[in-house]
């Protein structure tokens, strides 16, 4: 898959607490083709005007609108780098390397027989919107199970509800089921065939334990720290049955059966 570097126009930013949605557009004048993008792929954002940020920051592709030449990013402020990205004003530009990584795989079998669950924790829900859109276009109706600390931490649930059923958990009990995603009753009422998970590591590991125990196919998206994002530096490796592999190339999406240290 060809990768590109270019400046994207920041069309609109929407902030809610520590999370910012950035709508980015690829200008026509660039003469650049809009890339083919897969759900689960990410971009490397150059952070200008932040002296304490040296490297680019990897951010998942939250959504794309091919016809409008738009890519959306959902960024949680974790430190200076993400703060600077989130505070870029509409009318400004962000330099991206894109699209990077492997992306989630699509279910292979018969459409009706597949029950799909997309589990997200916090800003980990970001790539699941695009994944849900693609799954819906392929004839699936996925369920979403999203977890957050409090109801105020969910960014915009209506986008998920437009695609499939949405289940929520909150740690403080302000909405949905109180607790973590793995405490939600839907996990014990439905029999899922394929689970996709993205979010904090402890959350993904508990979803993986659930999936292992029931022999459910499960893919997770890892957030290993990266330097290059294009497979050159070997900083981002994850231990797998095939040895140490680059999360930015062979990942960020892994089938849990490949992740050696996750199996117990």
């Amino acid at each position, binding site marked *: 898959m060809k990768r590109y570097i270019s400046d994207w126009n920041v069309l609109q930013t929407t902030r809610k607490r520590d999370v910012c949605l950035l709508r980015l557009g690829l200008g026509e004048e660039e003469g650049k083709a809009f890339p083919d993008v897969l759900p689960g792929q990410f971009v490397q954002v150059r952070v200008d005007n932040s002296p304490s940020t*040296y490297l680019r920051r990897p951010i998942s592709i939250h959504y794309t609108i091919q016809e409008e030449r738009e890519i959306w990013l959902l960024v949680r402020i974790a430190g200076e780098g993400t703060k600077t990205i989130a505070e870029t004003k509409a009318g400004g530009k962000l330099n991206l390397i894109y699209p990077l990584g492997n992306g989630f795989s699509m279910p292979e079998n018969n459409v009706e027989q597949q029950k799909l669950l997309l589990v997200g924790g916090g800003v980990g829900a970001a790539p699941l919107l695009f994944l849900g859109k693609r799954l819906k276009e392929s004839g699936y109706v996925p369920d979403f199970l999203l977890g957050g600390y409090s109801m105020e931490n969910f960014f915009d649930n209506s986008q998920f509800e437009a695609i499939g059923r949405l289940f929520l958990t909150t740690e403080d009990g302000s909405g949905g089921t109180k607790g973590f995603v793995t405490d939600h009753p839907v996990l014990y009422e439905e029999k899922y065939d394929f689970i996709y998970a993205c979010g904090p590591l402890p959350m993904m590991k508990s979803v993986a334990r659930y999936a292992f125990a029931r022999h459910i196919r499960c893919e997770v998206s890892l957030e290993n*720290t990266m330097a290059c994002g294009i497979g050159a530096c070997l900083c981002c490796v994850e231990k797998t049955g095939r040895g140490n592999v680059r999360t930015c190339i062979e990942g960020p999406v892994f089938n849990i059966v490949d992740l050696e240290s996750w199996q117990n």
Partner: protein
Amino acid sequence: MAKLETDIGRLNLRNPVLAASGTFGYGLEYSDFVDFSQLGGIITKGTTIEPRQGNDYPRMAETPSGMLNAVGLQNGGAEQFVSDIYPSIKDIDTSIIVNVCGSTVEDYVSCAARIDTLEKIPAIELNISCPNVKQGGMAFGTNRESAAEVIRAVRRVYRKTLIVKLSPNVTDITLIARTAEEEGADAVSLINTLLGMAIDVDARRPVLSTITGGLSGACIKPVAVRMVWQTARAVKIPVIGIGGISSSRDALEFILAGATAVQIGAANFIDPEISVKVAGGIGEYLDRNGIDSVKDIIGAINS
């Protein structure tokens, strides 16, 4: 148009800008971004005779204007390089130089001898300066006797251009540079990464799995320029300058300090197109100042 050609021993480079080992993969990783024919050369990821899995994750910590790495020479070994990688890179239109590392003198010698058989590899860079491996690497490059032993042994089996990559983690880098020259190296390259450390104060743990790692990036540039200047005055063989270069002005600093060529490392991560931009910028500088050839400004500081 000023001439950008430069010579490292018998190796003629199209221009003085090379991509540094470990930051450019095998070149292919950058094929969407870089027109290799605009580059002076590419130094491959460190290659050892046997395959190596490298160190555990986490291997990277960002630091002010730089980064620490502890990759630990993960690579598929010399045989895999010869059979799988070499066929896919041998026709890249620039000089491909293999970075050779090992745990013992024998490892270095066998690896260098294996690479010597490859027609399209005109040079090796002997890495006696990797700080991220328990045995070998930097241990060879921080001591004159062991440096002399490994360079001498490799020189016996390796007939093409031999570049020795020096560690900055010494009190006097010129001593090891002179040793390399005496043992028949065609050039020295410097600097490899500076030994460093970062601590996560919340977890009260070192960030890297190996506790210490190698520092690179813009923050090391002044140290590297100083070492290149000292070394260029101490040896007659060409010096290749490395360390924190992220613009053509940075590269020119090294050339003016005495470097015949330069390598770009971590800056490739921020701008994958930087190496070609730096080469272009050097050309513009020469034209603007009415200088015919980059060779005319090597070491040309007024002091």
